[in-house]
């Protein structure tokens, strides 16, 4: 019976975020979503909410604390002397939920035109 060892190093912690969307992220680039350096941008707003900017779309979202925190583990392959070690890369305690309909950034700006002029 082998023992699984978890290693937690506070200094090594990175920040991850869990995103839940009503919808899918799509692209027409070759290779799809994988290997994509920059897809969009998620911002935390002052009022504690978040928004996701992808292309011309802005998706408003909210921050929801997870009931059970999740840990992101990285498996260290077993070497000769030790058994397998899992390093805890991050602990996720909240998720960003985007379930609102996205609005178009450009259109919104232009829509103001007539009314703003009066």
């Amino acid at each position, binding site marked *: 019976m082998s023992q699984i060892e978890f290693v937690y190093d506070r200094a090594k912690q990175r920040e991850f975020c869990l995103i839940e969307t009503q*919808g899918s992220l*799509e692209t027409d*680039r070759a290779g799809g979503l994988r290997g994509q350096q920059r897809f969009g941008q998620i911002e935390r707003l002052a009022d504690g909410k978040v928004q996701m900017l992808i292309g011309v779309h802005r*998706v408003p979202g909210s921050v929801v604390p997870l009931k059970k925190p999740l840990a992101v583990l990285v498996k260290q392959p077993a070497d000769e002397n030790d058994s397998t070690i899992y390093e805890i890369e991050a602990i996720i305690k909240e998720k960003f939920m985007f379930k609102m309909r996205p609005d178009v950034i450009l259109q919104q700006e232009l829509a103001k035109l007539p009314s703003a002029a009066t």
Partner: protein
Amino acid sequence: MQPGSSAFGESFLTNSLLQSSAKPASTAASALDQLGATRSGAQRADVFPDTYDEDDDYIGGSNGLTLLPTAQDSDDSDDEDNPIGNSKLLSLLPNRLPAANKSSFGMFADARVVCDPHTGQAVLRSNAELDFADTDDYQIDSAPVSELDAVKEGVEVANFIKHRSIADEVNAKARLAAHSIAVFTPDERYRAYQTAIDRKAQFDDDLATGKRQKHSHDNSTSAMSNPIASSSSTGKYASGSAFSYLESRYSLPPDSGDFITSRNSRGKSLYFALRSDIDVSKQMDRIATLKGEDRMSSSQVNRVVADIESELDTAQAMRASEMEMVEMLEMSAIDSQSNERAPAVVADSRLWVDKYRARTFLDLVSDERTNRAVMQWLKEWDYCVFGRESAVTKRQAAPATQRAEPGKAENTDKWKRPQRRILLLSGPPGLGKTTLAHVVARQAGYATVEINASDDRTAGKIKDRVLGVTQTHSVGLTGETRPQLLIIDEVDGASAAQSAQGDFISMLVKLAANADEKSGGLTSKKRRGGDQGPLLRPIICICNNVYAPVLRPLRQVAQCYNVSPPTSARLAKRLEEVCEAEGVPADAWGLVELAKQNEGDIRSCLNSLQMISARASKIDSESLRSSAIGVKDVQRSLFSIWAMIFTRPDSSSLTLSRSSRSSLGKRDSSGRVGGKASVDRDYAKLILDSIRSSGEQDRLMQGCFENYLRMEFRDLTHTKVSSLCSDWLEFYDIVDTTCRKNPSGSESLYAYLDFPLLAIHRTCSTPMGLSRSDFEYPHSEFEAFQGRQVALGIIQSLMSSASSARTRSTLTVNVAAVGLIDYLLRILSPQLVTSNKHLLKGEEYDRLYRLVEVMNAWQLSLVQNKDANGQFVYRLEPPIDRLYGFPSQRPLRPIMPMRYPVRQLISQELERLRLARLAAKSSHVPDGEAVDAKELSKRDYLTKLFADPMASSATAQKPKRIDDSEDEEEPVVKDFFGRIVTKNKSVASSGSPAKGAKKASIPTERSREWFHFFEGFSNAVRKPTQVKELL
């Protein structure tokens, strides 16, 4: 209920009923057949004993036996002339007959043969009635064993009595009685009817006391048949001698065989022997010999018979009319309008309209040209329908089609049918359109089938009939029958409502068009199948108003003919013929007047003629006038009133209509007497009445006003017109305005609205009158209204978009229309020649800038769209330039620079300005740096604005894609405005960092990543997942 004959008819019914049950094989005729025969031949069967072999089993009201129920109890039986009794059972019969046979036999199962106390005749009575009646009077015979027996018994008694020698005499008496019914005068009948009414009233009283509820049914039916009863009661007197005869003859019981006993009212017993069928036939032989032997009785009988025979024919005719009258009386009895006397019906009750309906083509009174045209059209079908080319067709086909429609349509059709398969006859009612159609069709060899569209209004119903008639490919042509022609009357009454098969008219149109389509293709028959074959029979539609909206589609495919009214002379001639045929002396002038008065309506003429002839012995102007009838209730059309207004009357053209007649008919007998002044006066009155009856003074006035200057009246110095305008038309305007402003308070003024129209008549009328081509229906008022609405809309949109609030609040529509638009348009029209921005000089810069600023201030814009030729043009929006000048003409001076490139430049600059303003506004509002921007001099701003050739060229290329150009210019704008950068900074500093980031992150090119949002709910399923699935 038919009195007179019905008494016989029902007794026959009884007979046959009894017969068929007793001896089913004896008579072939069914009960109903006999009833039918009775109506015509009752008399004969009753009268002649010779015919007894045919229906020898006889219980008849007018023969030896009378069916006498006596629901009428003692007080009625005591009544000496018991008018009700005789037919009581008869009247019961039809009520019970519909029930099952059993029940009707059941009635007879209870029946006994008894002797009527008054007449001495043998009587079949029902037990129930006997119970009710005073039974002491009658001796009841043995009770019947079964129902059938009872019936048999009755029949045999009848036989017995009949085949005695008394039968002859009784029959003769009965015949007399029957005859007396026939010759009953209407007055007598009326009296009888009155007594019947009285009795009914009496009965009703009794009923109220509940005395006779049991017999209420019997009695109420008796009330119905009372006239009959009273009339047949005369038979009683006739058979008075039969009474004593019976008594002497049957006082002793027969020597052998069964017999029936009965007792009459005097208390004497009578014995009727029962005979078998063989006995009966023996009896028949005996009667034959007896007739010869017994000279005394038979000669009497023969004489009477001869008398009756001679009178029968006349009696029958009279009876028919009397029956009508009695029927009417009865109807009124049902309606419980008891004491009203119905009007007498003249012997020949046919309407003259039907009597003198045109039978042949030459009889037609309607316009001959129309008649011939219709005939021609119908003849064009000859090849198709009859398979022959008539000489008429050959000769006339060419001109006919040329007139109908140019083009050689005739021969293209496979069946050589006329191009237009449907004929549409139109015209006011009573001109004989229907008659024309029928007569022409008959003359051309068709059998007509008439469908009245106002009766069967649904398309589905009519479709079957139409197709049934028109699709008779072979039915019409084989055998002796004539091909059918469909006449659809009152086609404008067809409903426009859509049903499953579409509406009626479109169905007709489809039928005609379908035929068109088929005429080209030879294989069409196969393709279409049996559903709708080609239209191979002519259809004639008849309508009153050819311009009815329903008929619009039909009008285009149908050959339309308008039936115009005949000239009054021609009509009068026809009326004279009618009067001659009727033997009514007629004054020729009176007839002409009648014809004029009815405006050519033949039907109405004939009707009034008949009406007058019924009252007066002679028809002339005087009798015409004295009767208020014979005048059509006409409401003139607006056009005819306009025609009247613009027509100067002369003495011959004056037709008196009802209104003028009633007002001045007495004083001034007709238009031909009196001078010009009186003619004018009458005509003016006529116009006035027409105007008033139309009730559309304003529309009439509009029509006059828009057209009076086109009339060719004599007014060399224009004084008439000017005085008309300044005086009467102004007066009309004042009154009309007042009326409109205060409709409820100015009723008294309405009356004055008529007179300006008369003034127009006085000034502008010509002897020629008004030709329709000159006259236009007034529409300018509506156009003006519409134009006003449009203009109001434009002005209001302009006012609402004014930039300054003060302007918005103070500006009114009138001020804008009169004081603003013109100047605004002048301001908007500076001298701008150069369309290339790079070539703009200082002066023009200013002008362009001013223009753009003003347009921005009023929210005006130039919108690019295509004009009628497909060219791109810039239009001002809202289109205030339409408020200037006349719509049909080019504006007097150009509004705004007209050239397309210049307008394009203006539009682009306007857009740029707006974007800039918008950007400035959104950035300036939050912080104090707005002051800086406001202080920025306009000149500088403008220079900067126009100093960017790249941006302007970009926009010039794609004027519509503002967003694109903006995207491309994004870095430039940032550079150039400077304020944008400031704004970003300021936002970033003052607002949340996210917002600033967002502003900065507006993508510069179309993103290749996107978020695909799933609308609605998520149908994700939560399920446990192991880590290894994720890894």
